[in-house]
């Protein structure tokens, strides 16, 4: 049976049993308004033109599809291409979505934007677009993440955003999301919440996906031009899953294209210290949607661990949950050590310093490429650059910054 992926989610935000709108009552009217506004702009030529111009002239799109020749040859298998989202303004794919939502915020007459952030890339992207549009910006960030992603915290502050350290719970991304929700409930009249990933209540998972889908649309054209065919395998890291769905979405109907989402295995899936709900979790409801979660038998959300702050989240976007169940996308895990090796490899062979998040996808490519033939093509989404991770890397490698 052929699935028409463009028909998902349904009008209430469901991807099969996943997604939906599990939000406190105070937000229901705002979510309804957002759904209507988004439905009206997503085919509006004026809106799409403004977005396209911003993506071209402000963000710097299209980003290249780069053949990593030396790295591919070192592995002795498939040709690996990198979709260079790290070359976007602000250094990651996050800005594709932040630009889109900020334009919506402006249309809705909101004067204040809030965002949650893990690695800080979405926070930086939100602070950037807020500065450009003259909007007030408040970013919630786990206290632990503030320490490990200090360069991004400085950038947000320089851009005029207020960064609020979240001390509750596990002091990471999930707690930042809780706190942003609390802010939104309180300030719903003048505030637009720019969620940075394909999770949260409807319409966020669909809306963020649509804003990120430009990654896959460009990749398809570029692959056809550069290789004369579609890629054989797409690989992307999955925390909430926005860069992965951004790359995958355009290809979901292309049966020949295999897709792999790489979750953070942390210290190893068997240790319990990871952030891989698709590999090791079970369905539940958190942050406004039903999806796979890391939880105990009583439905309490478990603490997560990943070397990368951007993937350190116990849930995942509902569309990924569905794509897993219907077996359209395969989900695997890469542990901290393997991700670090991926980071080192790409830096050494290609002179590209990847984000620790993207290093998970790179590490999986190093495993997969040697098993494929030389005429096969892998595309790895290089979702962000690694400058922000210098503190973490320096500590691990034992050199002073």
């Amino acid at each position, binding site marked *: 049976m052929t699935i028409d992926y463009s028909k998902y989610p349904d009008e209430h935000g469901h991807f099969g049993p996943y997604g*939906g709108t*599990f939000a406190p009552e105070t937000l229901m009217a705002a979510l309804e308004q957002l759904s209507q506004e988004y439905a009206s702009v997503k085919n509006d030529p004026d809106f799409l033109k403004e977005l396209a111009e911003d993506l071209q002239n402000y963000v710097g799109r299209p980003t290249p599809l780069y053949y990593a020749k030396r790295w591919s040859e070192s592995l002795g298998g498939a040709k690996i291409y990198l979709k260079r989202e790290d070359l976007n303004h602000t250094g990651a794919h996050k800005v594709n979505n932040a630009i889109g939502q900020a334009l919506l915020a402006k249309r809705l007459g909101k004067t204040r934007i809030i965002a949650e952030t893990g690695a800080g890339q979405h926070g930086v992207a939100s602070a950037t677009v807020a500065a450009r549009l003259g909007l007030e910006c408040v970013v919630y960030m786990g206290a632990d993440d503030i320490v490990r992603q200090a360069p991004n915290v400085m950038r947000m502050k320089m851009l005029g955003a207020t960064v609020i350290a979240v001390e509750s719970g596990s002091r990471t991304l*999930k707690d930042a999301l809780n706190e942003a929700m609390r802010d939104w409930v309180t300030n719903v009249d003048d505030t637009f919440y720019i969620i940075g990933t394909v999770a949260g209540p409807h319409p966020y998972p669909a809306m963020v996906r649509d804003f990120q889908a430009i990654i896959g649309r460009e990749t398809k054209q570029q692959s056809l031009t550069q290789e004369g065919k579609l890629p054989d395998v797409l690989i992307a890291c999955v925390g909430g899953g926005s860069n992965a769905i951004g790359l995958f979405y355009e290809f979901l109907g292309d049966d020949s294209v295999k897709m792999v989402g790489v979750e953070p295995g942390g210290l190893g899936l068997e240790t319990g210290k990871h952030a891989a709900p698709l590999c090791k979790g079970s369905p539940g409801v958190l942050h406004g949607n039903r999806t796979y979660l890391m939880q105990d038998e009583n*439905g*309490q959300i478990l603490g997560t661990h990943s070397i990368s702050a951007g993937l350190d989240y116990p849930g995942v976007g509902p569309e990924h949950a569905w794509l897993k169940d219907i077996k359209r996308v395969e989900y695997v895990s890469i542990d901290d050590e393997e991700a670090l090796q991926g980071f080192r490899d790409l830096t050494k062979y290609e002179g590209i310093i990847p984000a620790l998040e993207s290093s998970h996808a790179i590490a999986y490519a190093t495993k997969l490429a040697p098993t494929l033939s030389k005429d096969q093509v892998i595309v790895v989404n290089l979702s962000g650059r690694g400058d922000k991770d210098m503190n973490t890397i320096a500590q691990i490698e034992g050199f002073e910054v």
Partner: protein
Amino acid sequence: MSRIQQKFDELKRVGKTALIPYITAGDPEPNATIDLMHLLVQKGADMLELGVPFSDPMADGPVIQKAVERALRHNVSLDDVLEFVRVFREQDSETPIILMGYLNPIEAMGYEAFANAASSVGVDAVLTVDMPPEESQGYLQALSTHELDRIFLVSPTTPESRLKSVNEKGSGFVYYVSLKGVTGSKELDTADVANNMARLQAKLKIPIGIGFGINNGPMAFEMAKLGDAVVVGSSLVKLIEANESKGRYDIHLAIGEKMAEFRHAIDRADALKGQE
């Protein structure tokens, strides 16, 4: 007729507004909860709202977040909460009990298994913060099969169009969230609540309880003039936090005093209403 409906009918006959205190089950530790429930009833509670601890209470302010953390330090689960209710019912078969919490612990147990267990231990109603009417089909079916009341929240931002589904799907009472914000927020605007209550009373067919931000006697007095029930939570939970290190006697003393303040204020409002 449900125990909640019975209670509202009874209170209406004597011209009284219900006082519904909230505590988080298992706060500050599991052994404290059942005694606290009895204490609240002795001090004038008409119904009890028992919070089910959840690791990510995104609609709660810092006071209740900390209460939840205290309870979760003892791994208090939904099963444990149901057990508290069962033991409470051995001595009190009359005071209605409302469970308030988030959906995921109920999902983990399964709607049917939860509703069956809750009903059999003597729970009367369930309020799930992140379960709006739109998503609630299977959940409502399980609750109504087991004769549990389904309480929904209504907020200052709830449009008329959504009140219809609350009317159709809710039972027991409607919980009016009196401010835009999380539990325990300040700045409750009496005039704003009055306007909204007038709008709701014209549309809703079941009693309306008011909660969020009611933290002292004067505020409870104003709210009792407007609603059928007044829900108080964070101000009580704060006293548990403040007296935790001193022990059970001090917690009970402080809670008793605060409850007397609320009860007195509500009775005064009821007396005034009676004179009108």
